[in-house]
């Protein structure tokens, strides 16, 4: 690999370790910055700089890894929050439908966690509304609050799943029907998914905390 390409790739590799958020969003950021850095280096080369100096100038122009990571943190954390909520809101009915068919085929009264799920859905919709296109009309949520909302939705879904599994386990007339197995499997899969999404939220939260600490250090300095 040519030295100028190594300089740009080294910068992007260092940045990659500092970016929070969904994998697809991080890859998109790195691809976009790679294109911009290559473009910037080409301009310096056109102005007469040798390739290595041009790549170094391009990297210098883009800012330090700390600066760029801090600038992206809020946006990527917000995207993480939206990703968590979207996954849970979209997959929610795929889990809930089996429990409804199993325990409450005629009335939702057999689902004791319904109010909890309702609150989780409301919080999820609020997160989506205050971080998306509706922010042209409603106040936008700061990344930390959006992430807290997403984590609350994930916890709500997990508690809901655990609640339904407990209801089934303690039910005297619970049988091993195909419907029951499907509902249990759906909840177990979502519990696993919930753990994964909560860990993603925690990682994103740490990125925000790290940037806060960096800002404080810079202010003190």
């Amino acid at each position, binding site marked *: 690999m040519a030295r100028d390409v190594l300089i740009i790739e080294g910068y992007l590799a260092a940045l990659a370790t500092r970016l929070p958020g969904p994998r697809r969003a991080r890859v998109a950021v790195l691809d976009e910055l790679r294109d911009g850095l290559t473009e910037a280096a080409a301009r310096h080369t056109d102005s007469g700089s040798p390739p290595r100096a041009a790549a170094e100038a391009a990297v210098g122009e883009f800012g330090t890894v700390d600066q760029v990571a801090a600038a992206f943190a809020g946006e990527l954390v917000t995207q993480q929050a939206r990703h968590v909520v979207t996954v849970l809101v979209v997959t929610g009915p795929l889990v809930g439908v089996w429990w409804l068919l199993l325990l409450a085929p005629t009335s939702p009264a057999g689902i004791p966690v319904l109010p909890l799920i309702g609150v989780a859905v409301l919080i999820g919709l609020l997160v989506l509304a205050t971080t998306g*296109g509706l922010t042209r009309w409603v106040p936008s949520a700061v990344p930390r609050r959006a992430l807290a909302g997403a984590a609350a939705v994930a916890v709500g879904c997990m508690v809901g799943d655990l609640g339904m599994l407990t209801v089934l386990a303690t039910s005297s007339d619970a049988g091993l029907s195909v419907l029951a197995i499907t509902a249990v499997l759906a909840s177990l899969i979502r519990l696993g998914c919930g753990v994964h999404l909560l860990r993603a939220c925690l990682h994103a939260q740490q990125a925000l905390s790290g940037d806060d600490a960096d800002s404080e250090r810079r202010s003190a300095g």
Partner: protein
Amino acid sequence: MRPETLKGHLDALLLAVLEGGPRHGYAVIEAVREGSDGTFDLPTGTVYPALHRLERSGLVHSRWDTVGGRRRRTYEITLAGREALKAERVVWDTFSTAVSALLARRQWPATS
């Protein structure tokens, strides 16, 4: 110029650049730098998140192409973005007129 000075105005500047037609991220940021004669010389990598935020708000949209073997993201202003820019211009005109009037070098009469 300190980045804080631009806070609150960067979105409008990016929209104004995109009003002229679709551009990729680096071209947008370069246009802001060149259009301000270098006054707005922010670290390039720190401006991209503002473009992403504008897309999330529906004021711009982006598409990916492949150029020279690299993935390139090109941004285009939306109808909502044009409306937001129009509103920003009105706000800025009012604000800048008022600030210019107050900062003008003239003596203010004492009131007591």
